[in-house]
């Protein structure tokens, strides 16, 4: 499996503890890049600015990626533009909310 795939898989293990849904299906990950030095850059958002869980989730993303042996540096950028919206969720996440 390529490192890109491994990082992607790792992100699925980060669960929003309030909703019980992983952050990928929630649509919180906007972009992910792995460069030649195996440095990883993730651009993500949260459902609400001022979400009390924000340190935990952003920290969780970093830990989950650092957990992979080959990874170099990890850079997680938290952005509010474009703002998260329900359309960004997968059908699986939507189904879990009902």
């Amino acid at each position, binding site marked *: 499996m390529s490192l890109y795939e491994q990082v992607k898989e790792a992100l699925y293990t980060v669960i929003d503890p309030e*909703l019980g849904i992983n952050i990928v299906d929630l649509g919180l990950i906007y972009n992910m890049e792995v460069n030649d030095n195996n440095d990883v850059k993730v651009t993500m958002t949260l459902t609400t600015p001022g979400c009390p869980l924000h340190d935990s989730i952003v*920290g*969780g993303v970093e830990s989950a990626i650092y*957990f992979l042996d080959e990874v170099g540096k990890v850079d997680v950028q938290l952005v509010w533009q474009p703002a998260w919206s*329900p359309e960004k969720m997968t059908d699986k996440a939507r189904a879990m909310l009902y």
Partner: protein
Amino acid sequence: MSGLTANKTETNVKLPLSFIFLGLVSFVLSQWIFLIHSDALTNGIFRLPQILMGAHLLLLGWIVMIIMGAMYQLVPVAFLTPIWSEKLGFVQLIVTGVGIGLFSFLLGFNISHAVYGAVVVIVGILLFLFQILMTLKKQEEKNVLTLFVGGALVCFLITIIAGLTLAWSIAFGSSFNYTATLHSHILLGVAGWFTLLIFGFSYKLVPMFSLSHGFKMRGSKLAFISYIVGLLLLILSFWLDHSSLSTLGWILLWVGFSCFTLDILEILKKRLKKRLDRPFMFSLIAIGFGWLIHTAVVVLRLVHFQDERIWSWLVFLYIICWVMFSILGYLYKIVPFLWWTYKYSSQVGKISVPLLKDMVNEKLGVTLFSLFTFGTFGLTISGVLQMDIAVQLFQAIMLATSIAYLISIVQVIRK
């Protein structure tokens, strides 16, 4: 590293938890005092020293301490800015805790010296207000939440000044209008400080807990203006003894509360999370109670209903069913969150961690919330009908439930 992880906004968990724990103990104590003096409740005598002691253990020791603890936790996350000084937080915890204990004790056992306890409480509360002010100053972007929290804090400040004035004149006598001061004190403490604060935090928390999107909060500005003007008119009416001014004041409070309630209904309608947590639903039900009581007050004003005892019970119901029930529900969300953050936050992404709702026993929560509701209504009805044994029985239920509630919260931090 992202700037946000480098600049942690979390507070040392011991600070909010200590406030919350002291608050819970004070809650149980207040219920015990009300049980011992239940005959005063039966006879509708609320201004007895022992009842004043129980009331301030409930209002200051329980509700205000919980609010302070919750604000130490919520202000940094809701306003995205860390607490100004954690050290001051601990100093403030001790001063306020000692002050409230001393003040309540003196109210009950040596009311002419209560002013000395009052001074200590005031110092503690002023330290808190200073802390929050310094924290909010660091916030870049002001929003509607700032407005409500700011308004609430101003009301709190006036409440405690009025409280000190009351305690002062009990000790040394005075020539000003005591009744108007007492009424202003109660109104600004209960409807100004508590209500405006719950409005503000609900605008933030309800969308978050229900994962709501695309709502407008159209009523928020009107809710704020109408409520503030209503409060001002009522205070004027207390001092000028003006009846129609007072009716208009109550109507404006009702309008403000209704705008807020409609906004919350819109937020809930646009929610994505269909099954809401039960404790959170209890806080939402409290909004319904608050609205009903505001409505009842307006109706009673319009028909010129004057019975002093019924008015006292309405104030009691407002404090319990609106303010305290909101807090009982939110605490079941806040404490698990606090403890989860402390214990599991750094484990996210490394091991599998529990979900927030696994941290509390929701079923037990539902039982306790039902018992509180049953106890409160039973108490009110038997109190209004002056049935001594029933008042005792329902107050015993309140005491037992408060103890069970305390234990249920302590169990969260053993997870």
